[in-house]
C-alpha cells in the first residue's frame, strides 16, 4: 500500500486540487484525478518529504477560524498604521527572538504560514540548533507579549496537531 | 487604446535598442529581452486590439472575426516567445563563456583601449 500510495493524505489533497482545477466531478475527472494524485504522491515520495501525521484533527477548524479572525484583525491594524499621518509615529518595529519547543517540520511550516499570513509579523529565521525563531514585528510594543502570543496561541495548538 | 500600445512598444523598443548598443554583455542581453517584448507586442498588435473578445470557441460553433481576436498573430507571438526564450538562454551561456575565457564582460571580449 505504501509503495503504491506513499502519502495518502497528500494524494487526497492533490485529488481535490485536480477536481477544483477541472471544475467537475464526473467519473472521468475523478478517475483521472485519482491516477494523477497517485502519480503526484509517487513523485513527491521521490523527494522524501517528512511524514505527515495529523494527530488531533478536531483542533484544526478552531485553529483555522482563529487564524482567519487574526488575519482580519491584523489587516485592520496594519492598514491603520500605514494610513496614519507620518507625524503620529510613536510605534516602533523590531525583531523578537522566540524559543520554540516544536520540532515537527510541518508544524514549523504551518507556524511560518500563519505568522506570515497575519500582517504585521514576518517569520525571518529559524535556528535548528537552539530551536529559536526570529520574528519581525511591525508594531512592537512588548516583546514578551509577542513571545506569549506565538507560543500560546499558535505553537501549542500546532504541536498538538502535528506532534 | 492603439496609441497606448504603440507608445508601449516604442518605449520598450527604444530602451531595448539603447541597451543593445551598450558595451557590456549583460546590458545587451537585457536589451534584447526588452526588444523582444516590444516585438512580441508588435506582432500581437498587427492583429488588432480586442478587449473582451472571446478567446475560446463555443463547442460546435465556427467563430468569426466579429467575436474573436485574430488567432494568427497570437500563434506567431507564441512561436516568437519560445524562440526568443531559447536564444536568450543560449546568449546568456555564450556571454558567460566569453566572460570566463576572456576575463571581461565587454561585448568584444576585450576592453576597449582608450
Amino acid at each position, binding site marked *: 500500500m505504501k509503495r503504491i500510495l506513499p502519502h495518502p493524505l497528500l494524494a487526497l489533497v492533490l485529488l481535490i486540487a485536480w477536481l477544483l482545477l477541472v471544475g467537475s466531478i464526473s467519473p472521468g475527472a475523478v478517475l483521472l484525478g485519482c491516477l494523477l494524485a497517485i502519480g503526484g504522491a509517487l513523485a513527491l515520495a521521490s523527494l522524501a518529504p517528512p511524514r505527515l501525521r495529523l494527530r488531533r484533527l478536531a483542533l484544526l477548524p478552531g485553529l483555522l477560524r482563529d487564524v482567519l479572525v487574526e488575519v482580519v484583525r491584523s489587516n485592520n491594524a496594519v492598514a491603520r498604521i500605514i494610513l496614519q499621518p507620518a507625524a503620529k509615529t510613536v510605534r516602533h518595529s523590531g525583531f523578537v527572538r522566540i524559543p520554540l519547543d516544536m520540532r515537527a517540520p510541518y508544524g514549523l511550516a504551518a507556524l511560518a504560514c500563519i505568522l506570515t499570513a497575519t500582517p504585521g509579523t514576518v517569520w525571518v529565521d529559524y535556528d535548528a540548533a537552539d530551536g529559536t525563531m526570529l520574528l519581525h514585528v511591525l508594531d512592537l510594543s512588548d516583546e514578551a507579549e509577542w513571545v506569549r502570543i506565538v507560543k500560546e496561541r499558535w505553537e501549542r495548538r500546532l504541536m498538538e496537531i502535528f506532534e | 487604446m492603439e496609441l497606448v500600445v504603440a507608445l508601449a512598444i516604442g518605449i520598450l523598443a527604444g530602451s531595448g535598442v539603447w541597451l*543593445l548598443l551598450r558595451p557590456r*554583455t549583460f546590458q*545587451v542581453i537585457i536589451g*534584447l529581452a526588452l*526588444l*523582444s517584448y516590444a*516585438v512580441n507586442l*508588435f*506582432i500581437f498588435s*498587427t*492583429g488588432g486590439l480586442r478587449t473582451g473578445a472571446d478567446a475560446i470557441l463555443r463547442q460546435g460553433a465556427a467563430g468569426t472575426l466579429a467575436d474573436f481576436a485574430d488567432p*494568427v*498573430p497570437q500563434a*506567431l507571438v507564441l*512561436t*516568437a516567445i519560445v*524562440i526568443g526564450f*531559447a*536564444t536568450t538562454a*543560449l*546568449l546568456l551561456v*555564450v*556571454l558567460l*563563456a*566569453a566572460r570566463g*575565457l*576572456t576575463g571581461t564582460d565587454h*561585448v*568584444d*571580449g576585450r576592453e576597449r583601449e582608450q
Partner: protein
Amino acid sequence: MTAWADHLLVAPIVVPMMAGAAMVLAGNARPSLLAGLGLVSTVLLLVLSATLLVLADAPEVRIYRLGNWPASFGIVLALDRLSAIMVALTSVLGFAAFVFSLARWHRAGTHFHPLFQFQLMGLNGAFLTGDLFNLFVFFEVMLAASYGMTLHGSGVARVRAGLHYIVINLLASLLFLIGVSVVYGIAGTLNMADLAARMQAVAAEDRALLEAGLAVLGIAFLVKAAAWPLGFWLQGTYAAASAPAAAALSILSKVGIYAVLRVWLLLFGTGAGASAGFGTLPLTLIGLLTIAFGSVAVLASQNLARLAGASVLISSGTLLAAIGMNRAAVTGGALLYLMGSVLAIGALFLLVELVERGRDIGADVLAVTREAFGAGEDEEDGEPGERDAVGVPIPATVATLGGSFLACALLIAGLPPLSGFLAKFAILAPLFTPGGGLPSALAWVVMAALILSGLATAIAMMRTGIDAFWASPAGTPQRVSVLEFMPVALLLTLCVALTVAAGPALDYATAAANALYAPADYLRPVLKAAEAAR
C-alpha cells in the same frame, strides 16, 4: 491520398529531423552509432536532393500541403528549380562536411551530430517552405544549430566570435519578425504565393506601409547575407568556426540571398502593380559596396580563414548586385555563380584547416610583412646563378593540398579554367548582350566590380598560397587523413563537373531564374490548391 512521390518534398526536412532526434535519444555514449546515423541521413539526403533536382525540372512548381490543409491557409512546401538547387547544394555540402568531421571534429565536443542534422533540417526547410513565417522558423532552426556548430569546440576565438554572431542574428531575427507581422497586418496572409497574388490589390494608402515592412524584412535578409555594412560579423565567425562548421556555414550566408531572391522576385515582380521593381537599385548598390568591401577585406586578410570569409562577402555581393540588375538572364548567371561559389568556398573552408594544421600560428602575418618590407631582396643581389637551385620534391600530401588550393583560388577568383570564370561570364554576358543597345552605366560598374574583385581575390590567394605551399620549408608534411581529403576532392570534382557541364547547368539555372521572373507558374499551383479547398 497523397502519392508517395509527393512526400519526397518533405523528406529532406524529415530525414535529418528524425536522425537528429534519434541521436539525442542515443546520447553521446555510442559515437559509432551516431556517426552511422549521420551517414545514413546525409547519404539519403544526397539521393533525395538529386531526385528533387529532376522532379523540379518541370513547368510547374510542386506543392506539398502540410497537415493536409489547403495552401494559403496551412503551410505548404513548394519545390521549384531554385529550391531544388539550394537543397542539392545543402546536401552536397552537408555530406562533405559530415565526412570531414568524422576524422576528428565530431569528437571535439558533445552534441555535434544532432546539431549538424538540425542544421541541415533548418536549411532544407528554409529552402522548401512557401510560407513567410515558416521561413522565419526554419531560419531559426538553422541558426540555432549553427550557433552550436560555430561554438563547437569552444575556445576564446569561437566564443568571442560566437557572441557577436548570436547577438547580431538575434537582432536580425527580430527585424524579420517585425517585417513579417507588418506584411500579415497589411496583406492578411503569410503564404508567399498568396501574398504575391494579393500585392496588386493592396490599397494605395497601405502600400507604403507594406513596403516599409518588406524593407525591414530585406534588412534582415541582408544581415544574413552579410551585405555591407551589415555583415562584418561574417569573417570573424567563419574564421573562428571549426572547419566542418564553417564549410556548412558557406551555404548559410546564401540563405539570405535565397530569401531575397524568393521574396523579392515573388513580391516585386511584374505582377506587383505599383510596387514592381521595388528596391532593385539599392540592392545592386549594396551588392557593389559589398563586393568592394569584400575585395578590400580579402586583401587585408591576415590568415587563410579570414580570407575565405572575405571571399564569402565578395560572393554575397556579387549575387546581390546581379539580382539587383533585375533581369532573368543575369539572375540565371548568378545562380550558376552561386552553385560554384558555395561548393568552392565550402571546399576552401575545409582546406583551410588542413593547410593551417601544423603551421605556425602567425605564419600568415609573417608572410605579409615579409612582402611588405621587401625581405629577401638580399638573395637577388648576390650572384645570379641558378645551378644551386634544384627543385624541391613536394610530398604527395602537400601537392594534393596545393592543387586543391589552386583550384579553389581559381574558382573563387573567377579565373579560367574552372566554373568561377564561366559563372562571371554568365552574369556579365547578358549585361553586354551581343548586338544589343549600349550597356547601362550600372552594367559597366558591375563588370568592373566583378573583374576587380576577382583580381583582388587572385592576388590575396596567390600571396597566401605561395606562402603556404611554396615558401614554407617542406619539413614535416601535414598529416591529412583520406577521410578529410575526400570531401574536398568531392566538392572540387563537382566544380569541375559544373565547368564541363556549364551549358546544362546554366540552362537549369536560367530556367530557375525565368520561373522566378514569371511567378505565375509559382502562384498557379499554390492558389489552385487553395481554391480547390474553399
